[in-house]
């Protein structure tokens, strides 16, 4: 019997060895180094464009962002002109379900709490809201705003305002100055997944630049985001 148990141990050891070997084989990391890397882009053949940014449309820097009258989750309609003594407007196209939008909810709350009193309020607009999509419906937006305790307005974009601004993803920020001129377009910061590991607070830096009468630099940043539903 003792012999048997030793025998069994051997089996277990042997089989676990085989499994480990197999797993290691699956965990090879990275492409095999094939000598010199071929990127970054070799100059000479630039991308053939099928659609330019101009074709996507949207505002250029210095253009005046349109005001609107959109339905707010707290009830009633909301316009940028409802904010008295605004020094600027943090217009954010966002939505309920996009993981990248969700990761920024707390940071937007923080930004609003910090800057609303200084004249820069967050104005959140949901371009993906639709009564057909129960996760992005007005009721779902109300629920989300309540859960997260949004201190800012959260509006239904039923006027295709996103298209005038040129918002193509969520979240997508447009920082307007007091004259509603577009001064910054892009990301909130440089780390969607982890607020602690952010090293560039693009939006906050842009607000600070406006506060001292300077132009934000950079004024255009990009981030991965969910597509704005264009239908």
């Amino acid at each position: 019997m003792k012999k048997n148990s030793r025998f069994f141990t051997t089996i277990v050891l042997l089989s676990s060895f085989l499994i480990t070997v197999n797993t290691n084989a699956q965990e090879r990391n990275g492409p095999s180094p094939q000598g010199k890397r071929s990127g970054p882009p070799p100059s000479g053949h630039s991308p053939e464009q099928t659609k330019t940014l101009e074709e996507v449309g949207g505002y250029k820097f210095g253009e005046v962002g349109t005001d609107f009258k959109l339905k707010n989750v707290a009830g009633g309609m909301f316009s940028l002109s409802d904010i008295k003594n605004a020094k600027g407007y943090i217009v954010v196209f966002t939505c309920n379900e996009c993981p990248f939008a969700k990761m920024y909810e707390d940071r937007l709350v923080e930004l609003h709490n910090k800057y609303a009193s200084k004249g820069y309020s967050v104005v959140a607009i949901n371009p993906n809201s639709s009564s057909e999509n129960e996760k992005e419906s007005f009721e779902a937006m109300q629920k989300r705003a309540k859960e997260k305790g949004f201190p800012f307005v959260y509006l239904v974009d039923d006027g295709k305002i996103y298209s005038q601004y040129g918002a193509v993803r969520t979240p997508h920020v447009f920082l307007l100055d007091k004259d509603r001129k577009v001064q910054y377009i892009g990301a909130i910061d440089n780390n969607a997944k982890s607020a602690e590991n952010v090293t560039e607070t693009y939006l906050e830096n842009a607000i600070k630049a406006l506060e001292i009468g300077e132009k934000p630099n950079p004024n255009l940043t990009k981030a991965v985001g969910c597509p704005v539903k264009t239908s």
Partner: protein
Amino acid sequence: MKKNLLRILILFLSYGFSDTDHESQIDSSIANAADIQVYDFNYLELLLYTKSEKTYVVNFWAMWCAPCVKELPFFQTYSTNNPDVEVLLVSLDFPADIESKLKPCLKKKGITSKVVLLDDPDSNSWIDKVDTNWSGALPFTIVFDNKKRSFHEGAFESLQDLENLINKTINH
């Protein structure tokens, strides 16, 4: 008793071996789908350029992006019909979801094309390196060989749309 244990040993061993054999014999593309690597952009960038004559199609997508998931079958069909073209699906999902969500999602959709996961949070630093025309919204597709390159932002309406872009890029 001993006989039984021996049988178990053989069973274990044959499991181990048959699995290894299976791995080596299986079509490489299927093995790739079952084996999703996580890259940062520096690694991924190596896959975005080629010196060979081959045509490459790289699609950036994520499970949470509905239009992305909807167009995945076009890439799969294209890849099946054009085995000489390298199709790479770059998922921007979370590494923690690979086993629990990503693999089941690919299996359900019958996707056997190569899938890698790009985990690099500072997307502003690399979006332009994929293509300066890319806004960052998903899905996004690039087509290239060693001479030509083009891109498509947004989902393809049909397999033919995808074929058109590839043919337009490479054959003209």
